[in-house]
């Protein structure tokens, strides 16, 4: 907190995401989720429960929306289903998790800076700093932030269920907001290991719990800053660009080929999600 500091780096401090932002990202972890492959089986969601110490809230609390599905599988039906007798075209499944937005609406509204952007491009939640104003959740267009309405350590893991808890991450107590972290503990482990071995993190060296579990490998995880990574290639192939990559003016209409399947959910809000989805595919049989 000195004026020196302010004048020295003024131009850097004045950069928004369109100009590349303040961070020079080391990594920008991202995903590509192929809805053509997703079968809606919940394996990713359970993997998330196992990896991230998510609390089971029970029926009563579930009914009030207190559940903790960091990774949830949404199921939609065709819009014109109202006219059809049967859902001939099946369901639409959408695995929805924190989109780790580059321009996350949740970040600027937190009064105590408990949610912030890491140099890894992650939208991090600092549990210890969180005071539970829940403003971030209100401002999240994807509604993927989950609040500890109760003290789950008191109820969710009766002995000896607590022995299963992952010691790499905390158990959150009441009054704290939580959400998908892209399995930050795995990222940290991989980065530490790479650092010890004096090398860069390799693509595919680790993955998130959900991507690991997915039976159809619909979830691809990797570093969007690594030009060689499978995820980057998918993004490039489907012509989806990050904001810090495309610069000004930010456009959500950057696909040259509309037949390509890449899109980001609620792209028009300019949140710059790190999760790209690939459109579901259906045979035209009706």
């Amino acid at each position: 907190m000195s004026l020196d500091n302010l004048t020295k780096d003024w131009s850097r401090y004045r950069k928004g995401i369109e100009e590349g932002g303040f961070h020079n990202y080391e990594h920008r972890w991202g995903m590509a989720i192929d809805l053509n492959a997703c079968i809606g089986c919940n394996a990713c969601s359970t993997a998330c429960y196992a990896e991230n110490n998510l609390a089971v809230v029970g029926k009563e609390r579930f009914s009030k929306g207190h559940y903790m599905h960091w990774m949830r599988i949404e199921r939609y039906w065709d819009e014109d289903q109202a006219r059809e007798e049967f859902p001939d075209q099946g369901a639409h499944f959408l695995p929805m998790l924190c989109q780790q937005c580059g321009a996350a609406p949740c970040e600027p509204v937190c009064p105590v800076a408990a949610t912030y952007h890491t140099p890894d491009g992650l939208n991090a939640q600092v549990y210890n700093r969180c005071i539970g104003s829940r403003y971030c959740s209100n401002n999240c267009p994807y509604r993927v932030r989950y609040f500890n309405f109760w003290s789950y350590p008191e109820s969710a893991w009766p002995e000896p269920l607590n022995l299963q808890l992952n010691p790499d991450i905390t158990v959150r107590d009441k009054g704290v907001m939580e959400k998908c972290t892209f399995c930050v503990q795995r990222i940290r482990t991989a980065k530490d290991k790479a650092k010890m071995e004096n090398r860069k993190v390799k693509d595919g060296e680790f993955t998130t719990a959900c991507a690991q579990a997915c039976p159809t490998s619909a979830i691809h995880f990797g570093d969007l800053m690594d030009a060689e990574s499978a995820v980057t290639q998918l993004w490039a192939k489907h012509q989806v660009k990050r904001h810090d990559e495309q610069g000004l003016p930010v456009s959500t209409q950057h696909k040259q080929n509309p037949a390509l399947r890449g899109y980001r959910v609620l792209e028009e809000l300019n949140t710059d999600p790190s999760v790209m989805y690939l459109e579901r595919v259906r045979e035209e049989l009706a």
Partner: protein
Amino acid sequence: MKKTRRILGLFGNFDEATNAIYDIRASKIAGLSVDDVTLISPIEHPEVEEALGDRPVRVQYFTFCGGLFGLVGSWLWISSAQAAFLVQPQGGKPVVTLVSNFVLSYEMMILGGVLSTLIGFLVGARLPSRPSTLYSEKVSLDQVGIILELDDTQIEPAKNLFRNHKVLEIREEVMK
């Protein structure tokens, strides 16, 4: 001559009190100027005060300085705090966010202004203080008082002047 005494005259009729001050102003008592007059009244009396002439009030300078300090100081404070706290949330926004900083500086300008006005008021009004022993509780009811600081020779003329203007009560004390 050295002012040694203070007298208080209480008036029920505000016009009489005003006239008494005009009389003092007109130098009816030698050596006594309007600057030696203090008016104490239960309500704001612009018309009585007018008789006392121009007595400058400087509280607005306090206000201005306080407001300016609040505005500039808080802007620098907040901006430099932001520049020092780099793990701040970004949301795609710059580290030093001018817009929100101006909103906060605006509030701080007002707070600075109000607080310095208070200080200016207390300094200017010489508060807190102990009311002088000449003070009469009737002043807080419905009477006006005129306090004069006098030397020994002026006491009697002053009392007479008060009496001419239907003074209700006269109190007197020796200055220390």
